[in-house]
């Protein structure tokens, strides 16, 4: 029996078409969602007085100006900038009028401070590095772009990585190093670093999935990478040398494509916990796994020993009969058991993992 259950906190309606992605602001109580309706919706949340229940209120809707689906959203680590990736091939950077001082529901409008053009076809994912100085984007044009975030919302392209042979579905930065991972329709994952005397380059290709890799997510400690695929599995890759990662675990439980995963720190009482990994699928399920350090983690931290794993919570029909396109843990302290999902039913839902 799973130790926890996934309890609904709220259902957020408002998008007019499929909700593709959600992103929690790391610094402020804001949740962003994006949709095929070309908008981004922002929700503010707080605790209702004399209650521990979270209350979500619609804050604003950004009618992005993107001419096609907004496929993905990502916040900068400061929480001051929001990036949008659109099927119109562009990346938008959004900042609030008035900048850092703006707070509360009456703060300034969200305005497009930069439009990053360069991709030839649909942009599918965007991500800020942990320091906030780099931004990565990827596209059906098979490329991954690395951008330097400069003052005054200026962006300089540092590299165009043309390693994948097919669409690139997702990009994700390592939680504290400047390592970038990308996942592709070509069934592989690629890892990149910067050569200080030259350009960004691919130092590893991770093969193992039998179909499209939809999503990648790093473990909070940065020693592992999780990937989810059209082959219905989630794989865990472990760092076995500084520049070498090996597949050490295959997690099964989904019956259709696993579109999204998110690896959060969780709220475990187990000292060996590596955090909670949530997955969302076309089968309508959300599954939460707890991963734990292998017994040799102190003596041989880079051995290919797989981490321990168990399903701690499972939710069927998270969005009714519809696909679940995205799942994301809230990164803010105190909210480590809060999840958001986005679905084909146009809704965004917020969940809390609670003891069963």
């Amino acid at each position, binding site marked *: 029996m799973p130790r926890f259950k996934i309890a609904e906190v709220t259902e957020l309606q408002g998008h007019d078409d499929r909700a593709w992605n959600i992103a929690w602001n790391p610094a402020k109580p804001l949740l962003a969602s994006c949709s095929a309706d070309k908008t981004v919706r922002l929700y503010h949340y707080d605790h209702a007085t004399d209650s521990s229940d979270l209350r979500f209120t619609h804050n604003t809707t950004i009618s992005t100006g993107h001419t*096609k689906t907004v*496929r993905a959203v990502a916040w900068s680590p400061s929480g001051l900038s929001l990036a949008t990736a659109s099927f119109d091939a562009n990346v938008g950077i959004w900042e609030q009028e008035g900048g850092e001082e703006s707070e509360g529901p009456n703060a300034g409008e969200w305005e497009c401070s930069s439009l990053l053009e360069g991709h030839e076809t649909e942009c599918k994912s965007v991500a800020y590095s942990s320091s906030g100085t780099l931004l990565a984007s990827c596209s059906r044009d098979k490329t991954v772009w690395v951008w330097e975030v400069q003052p005054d919302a200026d962006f300089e392209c540092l590299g165009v990585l043309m390693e994948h042979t097919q669409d690139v579905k997702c990009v994700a930065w390592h939680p504290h190093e400047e390592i970038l991972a990308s996942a592709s*329709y070509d069934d592989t994952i690629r890892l990149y670093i910067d050569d200080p005397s030259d350009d960004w380059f691919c130092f590893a290709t991770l093969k193992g999935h039998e179909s499209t890799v939809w999503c990648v997510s790093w473990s909070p400690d940065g020693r592992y990478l999780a990937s989810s695929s059209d082959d219905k599995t989630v794989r865990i890759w472990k760092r076995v040398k500084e520049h070498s990662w090996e597949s050490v675990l295959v997690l099964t439980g989904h019956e259709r*494509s696993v579109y999204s995963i998110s690896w959060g720190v969780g709220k475990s009482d187990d000292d060996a916990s590596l955090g909670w990994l949530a997955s969302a699928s*076309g089968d309508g399920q959300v599954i939460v796994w707890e991963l734990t350090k292998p017994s040799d983690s102190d003596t041989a931290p880079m051995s290919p020993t797989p981490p321990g794993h168990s399903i701690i919570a499972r939710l069927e029909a998270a969005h009714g*009969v519809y696909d679940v396109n995205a799942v994301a843990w809230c990164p803010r302290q105190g909210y480590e058991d809060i999840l958001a999902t986005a679905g*084909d039913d146009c809704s965004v839902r917020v969940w809390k993992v609670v003891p069963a």
Partner: protein
Amino acid sequence: MEVFNPNPVIFAPAKVASRRSKENKPESFWDDEDADVEDENAVEPIDQDEIFDLIRHISDPEHPNSLEELRVVSAPQISVSENRVIVEFTPTVPHCGMSTLIGLSIRVRLMQSLPPRFKVDIFVKPGSHQSEHAVNKQLNDKERVAAALENPALLDTVEKCLEKAEAWDA
């Protein structure tokens, strides 16, 4: 435009397979105004003939014929379980560059007609196409499909293929 199969074999549509008449199909889910509404939430059984009826009149992108007349689709190539529909189709020639478009038209038709509880998987008949894996992968990638349908030229072509199928609904 390049014609991939300039001279396709055309077959007569099966007469007995037609289930358009109300007597044969009292639970048809698109005939809301005539159906006996007992319980709107009841799960209506949908069988392979009903799915076939939805897609048989789709036009081939490069011929004036329907997918049924070209034997691209047939009822035995459809399987239906509680919440899943699998449609197999047979391109007229193994190098058919229109296969993705045909598959996309079938997908759009089913997306628009079937209740949302159905997950639809579309494949070309094994061995019938030289790029079988690539065609299958593309047709079953929801992100690719979504993006394709935001392409006005492609959407226009798909809609033309669907016109005749939709006319049968009227």
